[in-house]
């Protein structure tokens, strides 16, 4: 897992009446980016950067933390709390305590944290009733039992608590880059990414081109892909800004209930609403028993004028996130249109959405 340095600005984690928190975050980002170009905003009052390269350049993690703390104090952006640890989640916790946690100490550090740091109130209250008040005690549970009891998100939290996954889903505010872009500030000063030795000349060339492009189009417009765990093709991968701290490579363990390959080559960032009807024009739904109410014959996708004729379909496959929920909240359906196009639909509370195209 990667060493991550997190910068936390206490008291600026939520937007006040003047909106100064967002501008201050932008300012802090510019100050840090002069020395650490791969710094990334996570949410209001929180920045993170990969620590390895700058710490080699500046002579240690402590030196980088001191340098950044001084610079931010000088810029009038203090107080700032800085921490370094393995992975994004542990480093944010380390920043609260203003400590550098070594690789060897990370799991012990995580184990002492209260269960509430996972930011899952339902899971936290259930754990507390079971007497599992710390991450360490939660991490000691068997993963299979966790899946039974807490569903797939619970397994993710469990892996984070064990330290086998570095980034907690929900830690990032996904809107923060867009909100910063709206501030319409001039781009951060040009940086020399070649300091932070790419693994090769080719990697360095690619990084330089990508960073130049980020200055033109915005940080979030140029991304790299990362695989994650999840049921749906959309959950199984994400695009993160180029240069963002690296998450741990996802284990190739099969994820329970995910669709087998091939996955759709186009996954809609924003799923489109669609209508699935039978030959008589009546809507087709997923029944409580997880079957289709009728044979689908036509599909109309929001914003597309043509109605597609459905010639074949497979599914529905329920996505049961939690076993105790009587009804599957979601189900997926593959349909093939007259033109031979394969589509992946998802049904949630009676409404269909187009989530992917097998292009």
């Amino acid at each position, binding site marked *: 897992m990667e060493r991550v340095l997190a910068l936390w600005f206490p008291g600026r984690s939520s937007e006040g009446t003047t909106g100064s928190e967002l501008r201050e975050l932008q300012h802090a980002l510019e100050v840090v980016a002069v020395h650490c170009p791969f710094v990334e905003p996570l949410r209001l009052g929180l920045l993170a950067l990969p620590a390895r390269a700058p710490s080699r350049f500046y002579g240690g993690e402590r030196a980088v933390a001191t340098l950044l703390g001084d610079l931010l104090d000088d810029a009038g952006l203090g107080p700032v709390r800085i921490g370094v640890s393995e992975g994004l989640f542990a480093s944010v916790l380390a920043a609260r305590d203003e400590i550098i946690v070594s690789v060897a100490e990370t799991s012990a550090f995580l184990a002492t944290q209260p269960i509430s740091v996972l930011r899952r109130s339902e899971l936290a209250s259930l754990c507390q009733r079971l007497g599992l008040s710390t991450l360490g005690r939660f991490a000691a549970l068997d993963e299979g039992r966790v899946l039974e009891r807490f569903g797939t998100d619970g397994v993710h939290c469990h892996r984070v608590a064990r330290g086998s996954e570095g980034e907690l889903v929900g830690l990032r505010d996904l809107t923060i880059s867009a909100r910063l872009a709206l501030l319409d500030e001039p781009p951060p000063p040009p940086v020399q990414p070649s300091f932070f030795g790419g693994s090769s000349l*080719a*990697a360095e*060339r*690619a*990084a*330089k*081109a*990508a960073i*130049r*492009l980020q200055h*033109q*189009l915005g940080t979030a*417009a*140029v*991304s*790299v*892909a*990362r*695989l994650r765990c999840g049921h749906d*093709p959309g959950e*199984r*991968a*994400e*695009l993160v800004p*180029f240069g963002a701290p690296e998450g741990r490579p996802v284990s190739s363990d099969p994820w329970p209930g995910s*669709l*087998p*390959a*091939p*996955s*759709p*080559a*186009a*996954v*809609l*960032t924003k799923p489109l609403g669609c209508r699935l009807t039978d030959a008589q024009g009546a809507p087709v739904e997923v029944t409580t028993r997880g079957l*289709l109410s009728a*044979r689908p014959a036509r599909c109309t996708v929001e914003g597309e004028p043509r109605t597609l004729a459905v010639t*074949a*379909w*497979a*599914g529905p496959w329920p996505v049961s996130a939690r076993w105790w929920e009587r009804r599957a909240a979601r189900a997926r359906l*593959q349909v*093939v*249109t007259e*033109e*031979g*196009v*394969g*589509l992946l639909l998802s049904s949630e509370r009676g409404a269909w959405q187009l989530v*992917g*195209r*097998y*292009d």
Partner: protein
Amino acid sequence: MFASSTARVRPGARPPLDPELRRRATPVVPASARTLPVGSELARLVPGGSLRRGTTTLISASAGAGGTSLAVGLLAEASKAGHWCAAIGLADPGIAAMAELGLDLRRAVFVPRPQAGWAEAAAELLEGVELLLLRPPARVPHAAARRLVARARDRRAVLVILGESHHSWPLPVDLSLSIEHSSWQGVSDGHGRLASRLAEICIEARGVPRPRRARLWLPSATGEVAVLREEL
């Protein structure tokens, strides 16, 4: 002695170049440095069995017919071999599918929505990557296309254009792969799942007089891009 020395040399094999002669000769760029590899199956279809650096390839397919899969399949081998690639204008990339097709995500840069800046983004990234997959907007100005083709030639990169028809790119290309028809297998009335897709493709290459047609698994039931066996 005569017999033993001939036995060691394969029939038809050239004797190695005299080291002294090699030292005095001016080396040319070897063939392996002029091309980027493609997977062994697609290599049967493209002239020379590889992607020539500095050239432009057009992949045309109607929406949903498999153009993205074919494009990613074409780049996968070079990506696995350590070359960087970028994808511009694929607004909704299916990352999991790309990984399944063999693309190495560690060396892939995505610019899903470059908006009006697509040509500048492509020119910029051609400075940094060796394979560029570009889905341009509906109408591409001649001048922008010429600049990018020249940049790709200059940087010795491979430019792959993904469009819906031959008209998606206003200039002649070095290699054109078009999907004329495709159909999914393995799925019927509520049974099975989308398992494999058979695509009929037409291959035209500069300097090759007649177009060639082939049927391709895109992907096969085992997840690979593969030429239908009976075609071989």
